[in-house]
């Protein structure tokens, strides 16, 4: 086929596609939150003492970390879904959630006697946490992978991994309202492992499905 024939064929299709890239991500993010919320409410639901917990320091802080993770990952995901190279400085925002968590861990270590560190780290819900966050995040990850398929990521593996982070952030936000282990030591350990599972799954999905 001659390039000119191709140009003529494509030229007849001028006009904008129905959905902009921003629109695609808006729909993907909203549906991801809805699906994660439905799965969460069906399987777990918030803890009964949530009103009392909201008055503490540690419980609300969990949402600062998970919210930061979801927010920064979604912003990075939008940038990574365009073909142009994304600078390291723009990706550096992804460090916000780990940084906030690291500071909280430092404060917790200073505030709590050493004998209690392990008890707080192990907590009582670690298996729950490891199972729930990936399960709640599966739907969002599938939606984000689908959105990436409709985008043009020049680094599909990296974009997929960040999609996993975003799905993990959303899932962890819901799960945090169920879990009674509020210590940053618990969050830094088990939430991290659970989100890492989604990140690896996202990288594989991106490599497999988001190439174009």
């Amino acid at each position, binding site marked *: *086929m001659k*390039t000119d024939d*191709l*140009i*003529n*064929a*494509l*030229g*007849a*299709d*001028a*006009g*904008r*596609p129905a*959905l*902009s*890239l921003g629109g*695609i991500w808006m729909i993907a993010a909203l549906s991801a939150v809805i699906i994660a919320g439905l799965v969460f409410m069906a399987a777990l639901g918030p803890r009964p003492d949530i009103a009392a917990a909201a008055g503490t320091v540690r419980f609300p802080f969990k949402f600062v970390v998970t919210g930061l993770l979801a927010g920064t990952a979604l912003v990075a995901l939008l940038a990574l*879904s*365009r*073909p*142009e*190279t994304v600078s390291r400085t723009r990706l550096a925002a992804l460090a916000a959630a780990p940084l906030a968590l690291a500071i909280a861990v430092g404060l917790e270590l200073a505030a709590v006697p050493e004998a209690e560190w392990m008890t707080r780290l192990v907590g009582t819900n670690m298996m729950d946490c490891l199972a729930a966050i990936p399960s709640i995040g599966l739907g969002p990850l599938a939606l984000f992978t689908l959105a990436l398929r*409709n*985008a*043009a990521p*020049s680094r599909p593996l990296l974009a997929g991994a960040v999609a996993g982070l975003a799905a993990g952030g959303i899932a962890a936000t819901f799960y945090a309202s169920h879990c009674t282990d509020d210590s940053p030591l618990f969050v830094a350990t088990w939430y991290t492992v659970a989100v890492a599972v989604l990140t690896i799954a996202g990288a594989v999905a991106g490599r497999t499905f988001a*190439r*174009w």
Partner: protein
Amino acid sequence: MDEAELARLFRAALAGDEKAYAAFLRGAAALVRAYVRRRAQPGLDPEDIVQEVLLALHVKRHTWRTEAPVTPWLHAIARYKLIDAYRRRGGRIDVDLEEVAGTLAAPEDDRPSSREVGKALASLAPGQRSVVSAISVEGRSIGETAASLGMTETAVRVALHRGLAAIAKKFGRGSR
């Protein structure tokens, strides 16, 4: 064609101007051709990659931010497609079929085995693969395929045509 002119034409094209779109595609093709030729490697037809890029920029045109410059976007797509072509070519050694034709047994059946079909499909770019597999293997219509892949019918026809041409070229049967 410079950045400002290309961006102006692309904006007009996105607003529905077919003439501007054809002019933009010609300008983009020239730019990509120069880019690919500078990096050409033996065994890769630069024009194949130019067409690959044109098709990709059409299907992915919503990933351009209309307020951003268009040449970095074009180069990013060209770069991705060039790397993709290198990778798909991989370590394959090109042997002229004529040279070994005498040593190959004559095929007993003219229909390709599913392994051959798989091999032919695997040699295609992902976009072409989904179109060729939907239409030629699953037997779906152009319209259905366009709807399920979110492409226009023209883009599906073009991808099908180019995919089949690539298979014919690579596997020799029914071409040239």
